């Protein structure tokens, strides 16, 4: 297994992406994940040898075209069902803690 000092990926890099992805890691987890993720990037180093300058990227197996449907009124009112599955609701809406950290 790759050491946490792998030049491809530092402990700080992993801490940064964990923060971006809204995940909290313990120090032990940070060490373990850094080694494991560096292993994957090491394996992916085989792609470095390829000359890809003139190759277009592919995002999807087939060309995507915009799909439109007829604009017909329907009666798909699932509001009550959707809210019933939520952890916290109030007045017909999803309830969350304050976004900016101030007292409500």
């Amino acid at each position: 297994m790759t050491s946490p000092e792998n030049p491809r990926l530092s402990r700080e890099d992993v801490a940064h992406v964990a923060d971006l992805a809204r995940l909290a890691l313990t120090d032990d987890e940070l060490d373990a994940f850094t080694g494991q993720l560096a292993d994957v990037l090491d394996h992916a180093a085989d792609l470095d040898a390829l000359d890809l300058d003139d190759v277009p990227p592919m995002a999807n197996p087939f060309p995507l075209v915009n799909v439109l449907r007829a604009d017909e009124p329907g009666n798909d009112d699932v509001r009550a069902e959707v809210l019933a599955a939520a952890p916290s609701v109030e007045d017909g809406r999803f309830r969350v803690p304050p976004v900016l950290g101030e007292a409500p």
Partner: protein
Amino acid sequence: MSARSTAAAVRAGERSALSVVEEHLAAIDAHEDEIHAFNLVLADESLARAEELDRRIADGGDPGPLAGVPVALKDNLCTRGIDTTCGSRILEGWRPPYDATAVERLAEAGAVVIGKTNCDEFAMGSSTENSAFGPTLNPLDTSRVPGGSSGGSAAAVAAGFAPLALGSDTGGSIRQPAALCGTVGVKPTYGRVSRYGLVAFGSSLDQIGPFAATVEDAALLLEAIGGHDPRDSTSIPEASPDLLGVLGQGVEGLRIGIISELMGGPDRAASVEGIADDVRARVEQAAEALATAGATVEHASVPSTIYGLSAYYLIAPAEASSNLARFDGVRFGLRVDGDTAPEMNTATRTAGFGDEVKRRIMLGTYALSAGYYDAYYGRSQKVRTLIQRDFARAYETFDLLLSPTAPTTAFPVGERTDDPMMMYLADVCTIPSNLAGHPSMSVPFGTGDDGLPVGVQVLAPALDEATMFRAAAVLEGATP
């Protein structure tokens, strides 16, 4: 009794749907404790459904081609009002307000949903050891994994809990467990089966497909769930293909290529590593069987497939990191409180996701992050183009391609859980079809040195499931 003959007997009134369901519930009762194929067994619901079907038949109705046939559903397929966990704590107790299109089509075909099967969390894994609800074990040898991520569906069919099951396949998650459990498993062409109601992992790769004990039953199930769906914008416009009608056509005159790069071996420099000798020998034997049946079989080269694993483990995590952003404690599933919304999001995701999901989210976030996007995600997307081009070139010469499904037979429980990269290697032969969007399927073909099943993978160009199934039927008939 096969699904097809069961449905025929039920439709003809020779057998009650109730007796079919009772028989399978009894099998589950007897052995589920040893296997853990299911997260949820729908005993009462499936009995009530069977009685309803029997009443319709008694009244002169015809419920359809899957009349009375129990089907097990991977637990990442949405079922209205029924728990859908994706093998994750973060969705524990969530009941979707709608059915997946594939689930609707099963109902329209007269099938009986018998339970929700265990899987690696959010379909991320190759052994079903990453489920938050404990591992599924291989029914053929409970010291081995069933493969994954759809290991519960593969095990349910292999154990006789259900004649049919649905799984999802992003990098091999139907075909690899099918190979390890000795069942047939099919990844259809991307867009063949609607993804509406499949909880998303890698949206440009995900595809729902069947597990069955026989090639014919897999064809029956794919015919029932396939075809265009306006609710999935990537659904292809073609009607579901006629598969049952072509199964007996054989392979006379077909040109079939063995993919050299996926066969391994010391004499093949430009090949993936880790293909076991006993697996390679079975694939060569399968090729001989196809040649005996009248096909022209040669070695084929699809050079960039050796880069598939590396490209996949950047592309799929990148898509997953985006798709799984929706699990934030706001709209469904688990919430762990925090003083602010971001603190609540972080606490929820930290408690709700397991290690493998965290790894992939972080890997994907990294591959998409400023400064690394071009080097990782961008280059991987270009490799995907190379793979599709190489397949197109190979299909100028060949009608079908052949390879192992998995590099080895079922490996021991716990062997790879601490080494993610080693686990990922289990998908090295299956990933290229997902990257290209092509159909492929695993057919059981004899056993390895350990007596456990080997799966042979048949690959076809986009939309040509029919020819793929013809070859699969020949292999099934020639099984050693």
